[in-house]
Each structure stands twice: as structure tokens, then as C-alpha cells.
């Protein structure tokens, strides 16, 4: 993203319905670099904003790696590295290895889901330009925000402000970078 002194223009809304409506209109107006902020997850909003979600894929890959490495670890240790004959059981006693294979699948899948989600979201990120707007502290309580980034090709301070005003927000603020 190009570094500019202005990060974007932010509008504040009172309700989830207003925000979703505004996000849809913004999309329809042709703005592409847009984000919205809400104090709780809103399914319709994700649709209106349009975002990629690779979390399920990352989780699947993690779980498969966990399961495969869980089984292969046991196979290698019990059948190749140090085979011990316990009451004539086969070295590769696969039924006995299922439990740990399963646990490793869950462990790796869960860790991939959490850390994959954080990585895809670019978190942790203690500083972010949107925090420069004092009213943004309400985004974790009961206010809803929509931002059009200055990196949007159609961005012009006056044009965007005028557009956002047409959405009927509670307030509009410019976000310094």
C-alpha cells in the first residue's frame, strides 16, 4: 500500500443495518479499497465487503500434516528406529497408533486455525492508523464504522467525503496515516 499522509476517510454509523446498507452502496458506487468495523461479527457485512477466507484451507492442511506426522512418527519410532517385540505384536501395530494420530490431527488443525487466522488477519498489530480517530474507541462497544482507503483509485478527499455524507452517517473523520 502506498504511503500517503492520509490513510482514508471514515464514517460512523449507529446500527448494524445502517453499516451493511452503507457498505453495499459503497461497493455499488465502485469503491474497491474499503473496510468496515463492527463490535461483533455480522455475516451480511462480510458479504458486502467481499473478503477472501483461507482459514478453512489452512486448517485442513495443518490437520493433514498433523495426522500424517503423528502416524509416521509412531511408525518410524516403533517399527524402524527401535523395534521392540511386545508379546509378538506387529511392529507397525496400527490400531494402537490411531489414538495419537487422531490427537495430533486435532492439535495441528487447531493450532493452524488459530495462528492461520491471526496471520491472515495481519495480527498482532498493536498500532494501526484507524486508532488515530478518537471516536474509533467506540468500535469495540456500540458503533459501526466504514472506511474508504486513500489507496483506492477513485479516492479524492472531497469526492469521498461527499459520497459518505450521502450515506447519512453520524460523523465523518479523516484518518491520518
Amino acid at each position: 500500500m502506498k504511503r500517503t499522509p492520509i490513510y482514508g476517510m471514515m464514517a460512523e454509523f449507529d446500527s448494524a443495518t445502517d453499516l451493511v446498507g452503507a457498505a453495499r452502496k459503497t461497493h455499488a458506487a465502485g469503491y474497491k479499497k474499503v473496510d468496515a468495523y463492527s463490535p461483533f461479527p455480522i455475516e451480511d457485512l462480510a458479504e458486502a465487503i467481499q473478503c477472501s477466507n483461507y482459514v478453512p484451507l489452512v486448517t485442513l492442511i495443518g490437520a493433514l500434516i498433523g495426522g500424517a506426522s503423528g502416524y509416521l512418527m509412531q511408525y518410524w519410532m516403533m517399527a524402524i528406529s527401535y523395534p521392540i517385540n511386545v508379546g509378538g505384536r506387529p511392529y507397525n501395530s496400527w490400531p494402537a497408533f490411531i489414538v495419537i494420530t487422531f490427537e495430533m490431527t486435532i492439535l495441528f488443525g487447531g493450532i493452524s486455525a488459530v495462528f492461520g487466522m491471526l496471520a491472515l488477519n495481519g495480527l498482532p498489530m498493536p498500532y494501526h492508523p484507524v486508532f488515530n480517530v478518537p471516536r474509533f474507541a467506540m468500535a469495540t462497544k456500540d458503533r459501526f464504522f466504514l472506511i474508504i482507503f486513500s489507496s483506492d483509485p477513485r479516492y479524492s478527499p472531497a469526492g469521498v467525503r461527499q459520497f459518505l455524507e450521502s450515506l447519512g452517517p453520524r460523523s465523518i473523520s479523516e484518518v491520518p496515516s
Partner: protein
Amino acid sequence: MADQTDNVAVENQNAPVIEPGYTFGTVTDKISSIVLNRPTSTGWFIGFGAGFVLTMMMLFAIGYLVVKGTGIWGINIPIGWGFAIVNFVWWIGIGHAGTLISAILLLLRQSWRNSINRFAEAMTLFAVAAAGIFPLIHTGRPWLAYWLFPYPNTMNYWPQFRSPLLWDVFAVSTYFTISLLFWFIGLVPDLATLRDRSQNRTAQIIYGMLALGWRGSARHWHRYESAYLLLAGLATPLVLSVHTVVSFDFAISIVPGWHTTIFPPYFVAGAIYSGFAMVLMLAIPIRKLYGLEDFITDRHLQNSAKVMLATGWIVAYGYGIEAFMGWYSGNRYDAFTLWNRLHGPYAFFYFSLLACNIFIPQLLWIRKLRTSTVGLFLISLVILVGMWLERFVIVVMSLHRDFLNSSWGMYYPTRWDWMTYIGTIGMFLTAMFLFVRILPMISIFEMRTLLPEAEVKAE
């Protein structure tokens, strides 16, 4: 149990999931002010202090154990497992209700869970931590406990992967890790709320670091929701597997009374049974002391009571099948185990177990009792005692008289056994007191989604 939140109002008119009249702002204020503004009460200090003293007692008992060895306990040959394993199974079972509430009820869209999942998850974590202590110190040389993990070592060998005890190591450590991740990831948006609401610079920095810079972006929420659901989907089979694997510790062996196929389902049901009892024992005083009756309503208490009633019957079925198989298998050792339970030296504990787990909880059929907090609290206490007795009966009564009369014995716990056990209860309480003081005990963002104004109206 199957009622959806939509027809809550129709079916259960007196007990909504959240009292009417709340907005995003008031829900946020009410929950976050417990942590941020409310002065720490004397009662909190007394409770925390009592827990802390008991924790110190536990550390003393463990310290003495490390110096002297497991001979200070009541364990012997034939009863090598004793209190350590009884308490391990009891604690880990208690943890299971937290995961049931946070994961399984999430997948089943039981949104009433939103106000109790946070502290139920915390309960899971602390219970699993308390459980983990026991097998660790029961090894006798806890400073070598890392030998349980497969790591390349100078001795050039590996743990025995065909042993259920090693499965247990993997199951319990996975369970703790996933529970911790689930709990923490659920906390992140609420930590951001605390960061933004806090007036105190130190608190702002600490909550700010823990919140990882969460800003509630729609893209973040989208991925967050799918990670949360996937984690719930992974935790669901996990929680069922954990107590199944714990039951394998017994069932894979050939000891009479242990070697049965009913153990996995019956252990899992028993775990949830005792876990919900612990949830109620925590929820009832917490909602009273912190004035949270509007969020943790009578409906939550009633639903928990119904879950206990249902799982209690599964447990009763387990006892029935155990007794039936003692006779039906035609195996004289199994038959003797049954006889020994009814007439042996520990018969009192077996009958107490039946009273605590089967007969007394039937009082929950009475609606008046399900809505009475005192009654529910007392029945939950009885169930927790009963579930502890169940593990005592399983561990001690099977081991003390097995195949050969010459290897029969008796088990008497010593004061060190009791000090360690009661000490872990203290540790659990200490952790719970710290948790309700410094973290939001109810998930704020999930409560917001329950409010009518959270609904996006079609234009």
C-alpha cells in the same frame, strides 16, 4: 433441550436468555465495569485468600512428596493408583462441561450458551491444570516427566506408543492446548473492548498487548468466525476422545471391573455430568455476587439441570450394565467384583455413589427445585461428591481384590493424599477468583449478538 432460541419466548416465558431492555452499550458497560470500575470487594479477598492458603498447602504436600517419595501416600501393592488417579479423572471430567458448552452447544446453535461459555472455558482450563498435577506427581519422579514425550535422547529409545498411558499424555496435553487457544481467541475481541474502555494506563497497555491490535474489521471477523467454528468442530471430537482415552487407561487392562466396553461412553457422560454440576456451583454464586442475573438467567440454570438429568441417566445405565455384565458374562472374577461392591469392605462407598449419582439427582424432575438456586447448588455438590466416589470405586475397588486372594489389600488415604486433593481445589478456586477479577467473565461480543438490535434488517 432441543428448543431453538427463536421460540424461547413461547416455550419458556419466565426465563429469557437475556433480560429485555439491554443495548450494546449497557451490555458492554455492565460486563466490563466488573473488571474495570468495580472496587475489589472484601468477599473477593476472603475467597481468594482461602484458595491461596489451600494452594500453599498443596505446594507443601507436593514439596514433601518430592523429598520423601510416594511412600507418604496411602498407595501400596495392589492399590498402586489411589487418590492420584481418582483425582485426575475427577478433575479432567469436570473440565469437559466447559468444552461441551463452548464447542458442542455452539455447533448446535444453542445461543443461550453465550453468557456461560467464557467462565465455563476458564473452568475447563483450571480443572485440566489441576488434573495434570496428579499423574505428574504420581510418576514418583516428576522432574523426569518429560520422558513421557518422544524426543531424541541419549538413551536412544522412545516411549511405548502401544500403551494407553501414553495416549493419555497426548490426549490431555492436546486438550489443554486446544482449550487454551479456544479460550484466548474468544477473549481477543473482549480484550480490545477492555483496552478501549480502560482509563488506567497500565491496564490499557496490558489489555492492548493481549488484544493483539484487534480492531473489529469485517474481514477479520469473517476469518475469526470461521476459525472459531473450525476450532469448535475440532474440539467436539477432541473432548469426546479425551475421556474415552482416560477410560482406556482402565478398559485396555484385564483387571476385573475395568475390562469392559461400556467404559468410554460412560466415562464421557459422567464427565459432562460432573462438569455441569461444577458449572452450576460456580454460576450460582457468581451471578448473585456480581448481579448478573439478567445475563445468567434461570433458563441457564434450568438447562444445565436438564443436561445433568440426561447425563445422569446415561451414567445410571452404565452402572446397570456393569452390574448386569458381572452376572451375564459368567466370568467368576467379574461376578466377584459385583459381589465385592455390594458386600465388600468398601460397600458403603458404592451405595453412597448410587445415592449421590442416581437417586438424589432425580429431585431435578421437580420444576420448583430446578428454579431454586439453593436446591440446585446443593444437588450439584452431591453430584460432584458422587462422581468423585465413582472414580474411587472404579480405581480402588477393582484393584484391592483382583484374581489372587494372596494379593488382596486395603487402601487408606493419608493426610498427604487429602492435603494434595483439597489443595488442588484451592488452586482451582484461586485461579477462578483471579479470572473473574481481571478478565470479562461473560463473552461481551457474543452477548451483543443476542440482542435484538444486532439483527440486520432487510431494506
